[in-house]
């Protein structure tokens, strides 16, 4: 079985030279990108987008290596693998390279770097790494929050000439630095106590595969998320009481769906429905959309507007993408229900199951479109932007559904992963282009960068969700 982070594993399996070249290329690309914007004085948006993107790529790399490191450490088997120590050191080295070099280059290229700022960024990165090793979700949330905060800080600096990074912090940065360091050490100590050398480990293991991920867990746990299981249970209970879940096929198909995306969509629905009746929420929603309506004046607005634009782009992508777990779960449901479902013949069985899948898909498209439409309606968006987004929604929904079908049918899954992430990248970059006040030539650079970033993230996410679901 391949790792969730296949891209990085492939790199790791190859020689140290490849690892070195990859790290070097990433750093040079980030530095060149930063330099490009530094040499091209433009409104603040570009610098903000740059920092966000630079840090997101850092986050994606960091998450991957930290996850890998965590998996290697936590397993009771991996230490038996030849080259275990080497894998550990390479993972650590890559983490250090990523969190030291990329943020430093980005900030220095923009001309904001001071020893204190860099130390704080690095310390935060160390803390995020430690948290990520323990829980990738917690690490991702923490890193995302940091990215958002740093962007706001940068915007403030841009807006107030003569001010420096972290000037707006009400707490002494050195105190924060010390606090984070101490907290990191405590958490690391607890972690080492739990998974460190004192932990009883197996001395022998029989396996035909020496791939570390095969050794990682005897039985890969599928829906490990508390939210996933809890949400399915809630849906099951409510669905049964309301009569919405009427047959066994619904339940079997429900079982493998990756629920986190559904929860996120539920929160969006709740937010925007509340916005219809509650003015303060409505104002936030309008703030979200501000960038669409006021391109020329976006620079003049408060910095968070740019952040929320970025958030909005992500939210729209979440809604517009098709929930492929509906399709990947068909394989499981097919196996699970085959002997149980009282249907004559193989064709009838497949037909019956596919009818349920189509029904679920229709519900998925309808609900997500309603939320999408609700957002656009509250934004009072009109004209070309409105229709571009509406048609973009359906185009991307169709595209991702089609790719989802290919994903479960195709033998060349790597190509499909690539196409899926390519689609995500194009969609993401297109919306970003609409929201950002930038020239067309800049948008090309941004799109390319977004594409690479999303390709990496997309492959990771898709592989992760697919493997999880197939092994439920």
């Amino acid at each position, binding site marked *: 079985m391949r790792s969730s982070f296949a891209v990085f594993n492939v790199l790791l399996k190859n020689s140290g030279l490849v690892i070195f070249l990859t790290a070097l290329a990433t750093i040079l690309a980030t530095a060149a990108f930063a330099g490009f914007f530094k040499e091209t004085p433009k409104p603040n948006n570009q610098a903000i987008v740059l920092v966000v993107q630079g840090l997101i790529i850092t986050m994606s790399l960091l998450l991957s290596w930290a996850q890998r490191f965590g998996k290697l450490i936590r397993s009771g088997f991996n230490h038996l693998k030849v080259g275990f120590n080497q894998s550990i050191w390479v993972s650590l080295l890559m983490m250090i390279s990523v969190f030291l070099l990329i943020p430093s280059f980005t900030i220095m290229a923009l001309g904001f770097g001071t020893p204190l700022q860099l130390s704080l960024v690095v310390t935060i990165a160390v803390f995020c790494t430690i948290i990520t090793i323990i829980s990738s979700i917690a690490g991702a949330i923490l890193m995302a929050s940091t990215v958002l905060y740093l962007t706001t800080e940068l915007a403030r600096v841009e807006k107030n000439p003569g001010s420096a990074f972290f000037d707006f912090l009400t707490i002494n940065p050195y105190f924060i630095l010390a606090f984070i360091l101490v907290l990191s050490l405590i958490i690391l100590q607890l972690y080492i106590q739990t998974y460190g050398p004192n932990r009883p480990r197996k001395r022998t293991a029989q396996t*035909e595969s020496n791939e570390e991920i095969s050794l990682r867990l*005897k*039985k890969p*746990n*599928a*829906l490990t998320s508390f939210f*996933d*299981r809890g949400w*399915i*249970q809630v849906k*099951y209970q409510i669905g049964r009481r309301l009569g919405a879940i009427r047959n*066994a096929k619904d*339940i*079997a198909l429900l*079982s493998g769906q990756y629920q986190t995306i559904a929860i996120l969509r539920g929160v969006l629905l709740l937010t925007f429905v509340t916005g219809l009746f509650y003015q303060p929420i409505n104002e936030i929603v309008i703030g979200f959309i501000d960038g669409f309506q006021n391109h020329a004046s976006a620079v003049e607005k408060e910095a968070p507007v740019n952040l929320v634009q970025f958030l909005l782009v992500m939210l729209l992508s979440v809604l517009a993408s098709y929930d492929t777990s509906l399709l990947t779960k068909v394989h*499981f449901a097919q*196996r*699970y229900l*085959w*002997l*149980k*479902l*009282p*249907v*004559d*013949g*193989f064709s009838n069985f497949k037909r019956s199951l596919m009818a349920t899948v189509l029904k679920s898909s229709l519900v998925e498209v309808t609900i997500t479109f309603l939320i999408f439409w609700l957002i656009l309606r509250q934004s009072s968006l009109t004209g070309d932007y409105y229709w571009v987004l509406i048609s973009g929604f359906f185009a991307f929904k169709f595209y991702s559904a089609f790719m989802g079908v290919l994903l479960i049918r195709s033998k060349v899954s790597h190509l499909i992963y690539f196409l899926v992430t390519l689609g995500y990248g194009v969609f993401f970059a297109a919306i970003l282009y609409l929201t950002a006040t930038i020239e067309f030539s800049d948008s090309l650079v941004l799109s390319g960068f977004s594409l690479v970033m999303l390709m990496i993230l997309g492959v990771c996410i898709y592989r992760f969700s697919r493997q999880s679901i197939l092994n*439920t």
Partner: protein
Amino acid sequence: MQNIIEVTQLTKSFKGQTVLNDISFAVPKGSVVGLLGSNGAGKTTLLQSIIGLHLADQGKVSICGEYVPNLSAATKQKIGYVSQESELLTWMTVQQIIDYTRSFYTRWNANLVNFLINDWALNSSQKIHKLSTGQRQKLSIILAIAPEPDLLILDEPVASLDPISRRKFIKTLLELNTNDAQTVVFSTHITSDLERIAAEVLLLKDGSIYFHGDIDELKEKVAKVHIVANQKLPNQLNIPGVINLIKTEHQASVTVENINDVNIDQLSEQLDANIRIEPLSLDDIFVELHS
């Protein structure tokens, strides 16, 4: 006796690698067949092909006279299956999955379920994802036998169970089979369990059937011949059906496929040697075949 399973020239490959190669056999109704083979011999693929989870590349499989995978609902109701890695809806509680599974079947032995839940110390209100591997396996077995299927197919059912649970499971299986109404096909690595339950064994080796028949018949055929010669043994021993051979200058231990094909007196005279025949247990036979 009527056959409940008929497999004819079954071939199955994955990514160009042949896992099952031209397999043919039949399982009479009411029999208990143990499927034995090393890792990768094709046991799981064979069991899954029988019930239609894999479609055959070539050949045919029929259950109760119906060709797989075009089984009728009535026939599917007669089949119970436990996979190697329990496939359960992990977000449910034990009771929820019992109720859910029960809704599929017209026949359901609730007393047996309650008895086994207590006997195997499972908690009905426990969430499945919190159960251990062994407990999940127990639950899978309970769900498979509760509808009292005519054909029970078990893929390494006891692999995750502790010795006490294994014995309890075997006892339950024997009780279910007492009136010969139920046919059981199960794969295992634990030959002692197989000898305890099954009368018939189907031995798979490299995707083909090496032996299919009574366990006693297999044990009577395969034996080890110990040779102690007064003179130097020749390079080639003229013994038919050699499975395994360990030879020194004056001594040799030869495991043979069928001891009845070996003329012991003639061999003794030919080699000027003392010959002793050692009967082998099923476990020994398995080891000899794969060593």
